[in-house]
C-alpha cells in the first residue's frame, strides 16, 4: 500500500537563528521528490525535522505508512525509523569499526525488518556486488563511493516504506555521483519506495525526480510540478546554470 509524506507550514531553527520558515512539502505515494538548494538554505534541517533530530517550532509533519497516518512531530528518531522511514544522513554516519556485514545487520535492527534480514541482505548484495566482496572489511576503511553505497544499503535493510537521502553526491567523483543517483532510482523501483532526496547537484537530481522544490533561505521559493517545470525555471537558471 501507499506511503506518503506531508510537511505543512514548518518553522524550525537553532536557538535564535531561524532556519526554516513556513515550509510546506508534499511527497506523494511512489514519487521521487527532489529538495533542491545550495548550501546553507535549510535542506538538511528539514530532513532532520522529519527524522525527529531537530524539533520544529511550528507546523506539522505527517507520514502515511501503508495507509495509516502518523504525526511525526514529537516522536523520537527511533520511533520514526520504526514506523518505516529510513534516512541516509549527510556524511553517511556508518559504524566505521564494524564490518560491512555488521553495518548491514544493524540496519535490520527494527523488529519488522529482522524477519526479512536474509532476504533484504541478498537484495542489497545483488544491488551492490561490491559490498558482498567487501562484507568482512571495516566500513571505515572503504572509499567514499563504497561508503555511500553501504549507507544506502544499510538504510534499505530496515525495510522502509519512505526513504530520505541527504546530499548523496557530497564528496563523490562525478562518475560516482551519477552512479549513486541511478542506484537510488533502481532501489526505489525494487523496493517500491517513496523517496525524498535533498541535493545540491541539480542536473543529477532532476534525472530521477518526478517533482522538486527549490528552497532558498529557509523558504520554498519554487515548487516544480514536473522535471520540465524545474528545468525551465528562472530561479534554477539563476542558481545553477549561471544565466
Amino acid at each position, binding site marked *: 500500500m501507499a506511503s506518503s509524506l506531508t510537511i505543512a507550514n514548518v518553522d524550525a531553527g537553532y536557538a535564535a537563528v531561524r532556519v526554516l520558515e513556513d515550509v510546506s512539502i508534499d511527497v506523494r505515494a511512489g514519487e521521487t521528490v527532489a529538495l533542491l538548494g545550495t548550501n546553507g538554505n535549510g535542506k538538511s534541517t528539514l530532513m532532520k525535522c522529519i*527524522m525527529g533530530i531537530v524539533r520544529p517550532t511550528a507546523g506539522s509533519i505527517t507520514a502515511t505508512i501503508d495507509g495509516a497516518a502518523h504525526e511525526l512531530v514529537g516522536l523520537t528518531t527511533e520511533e520514526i525509523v520504526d514506523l518505516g522511514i529510513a534516512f541516509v*544522513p549527510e556524511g553517511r554516519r*556508518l*559504524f566505521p*569499526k*564494524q564490518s560491512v556485514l*555488521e553495518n548491514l545487520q544493524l540496519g*535490520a*535492527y527494527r523488529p519488522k525488518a529482522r524477519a526479512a534480514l536474509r532476504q533484504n541482505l541478498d537484495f542489497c548484495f545483488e544491488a551492490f556486488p561490491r559490498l558482498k566482496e567487501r562484507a568482512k572489511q*571495516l566500513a571505515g576503511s572503504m572509499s567514499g563511493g563504497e561508503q555511500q553505497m553501504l549507507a544506502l544499503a544499510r538504510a534499505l535493510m530496515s525495510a522502509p516504506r519512505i526513504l530520505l537521502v541527504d546530499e548523496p553526491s557530497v564528496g563523490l567523483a562525478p562518475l560516482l555521483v551519477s552512479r549513486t543517483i541511478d542506484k537510488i532510482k533502481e532501489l526505489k523501483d525494487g523496493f517500491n519506495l517513496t523517496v525524498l532526496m535533498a541535493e545540491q547537484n541539480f542536473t543529477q537530481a532532476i534525472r530521477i525526480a518526478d517533482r522538486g522544490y527549490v528552497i532558498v533561505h529557509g523558504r520554498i521559493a519554487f515548487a516544480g510540478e514536473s522535471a520540465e517545470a524545474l528545468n525551465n525555471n528562472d530561479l534554477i537558471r539563476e542558481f545553477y546554470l549561471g544565466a
Partner: protein
Amino acid sequence: MDVSYDLLLNAILSGLLLGGFYAAVSIGVAISFGMLDIVNIAHPAFILLGSYAAFIGNSYFGLDPILAAVIALPFFYLLGMAVYQVYYVAFERRDDQSLRGLSFFFGLMFITEVGLVLIFGVDYRLVQARYIGESLRLGPIELPFRLLVPFIVSMVTVVGLQLFLAKTFLGRAIQAVAQDQLALRLMAANPVRIKRIAFGLSIATAALGGAILIIIQPVEPSIGREYIGRVFAICVLGGLGSFSGMVIAAVTLGIVETLTSTLFGPSWAPAVSFGVLLITLAVRPSGILGR
C-alpha cells in the same frame, strides 16, 4: 640457571589458568571501557561485591560459590543498570563524563569498599568447596582445581558473551553504540537503553568474577585495587572492543607473570607484564586484535 622442564611446563600451565582468572575479571571492563567508553574504575570493587555475595551464599547457605554467583547475577545486572542510569542522568547526558564521570566511579569504589568493611570487617574471608585443595594430575603436570574451575567458568562466560554480541541484534548494537549514537538511533535503537543493558551485563559479570576471585584466594574489601591497573592493561593490550584480544592478552599476561615469578622471583612479575604492554602498544597501538 637450572630450571627443569617439568617446572617450566607447570609454570606455563598455571599461567594459562591465571590468565583465565584475569579474563574473568576483565570481561566487565572489556564491555564498559572497551565498548561503551565508560571508564568504570570501580569495576574491581564490584568484583569484590561479587566475592562477598559468593561468600554469603557459601557460608550461610552452603551453596557452591559459583552457584551463589549465578543466583546473584540478576541482582548485579539490575545494580549495573541503576548505576548507569545515575551516571547517564548526572554526567553523560550533559556531556560531562570525562572527568566528573571518572570521579563518580572513584567515589563509587570507595563507597563500596567502605560499605564492605563496615559489614564484613577487614578480615580475610574465604569459601569452601570440594574442589578447593584438590588437584588434577596428568603425569608431571599438576593442575589445581582451585584454578581449573575458575578457568572453565571464565571461558564459558567469555564464549557465551561473545556469541551474544556477535549473533544478536542487541549484541551488535552494543558493539556499535560508542561509535555513533545518532547512527544507532537511525537504526531504530535507543542508545541509552542499549548502554544501560550493556552496563548491566558488565556488572553482572562481576558477580562471576568475584566468585572466581574468592575461590582462588581469600579476599578482604580493598583487595580489588590490586587489579585495577592489570584489568585496564589487559583490555588495552587486547585491543578495545575485542573479546578475543582481551582473552589473548589475559592469558599472555598470566603466562608471562608466572614464568617471571618462577624464573626471577615474584617481585619482577608486574614490571614484566607492564613491559609487555608498553612494547605491544609501541608496535601495535590499537592492541593485539584492536580494530
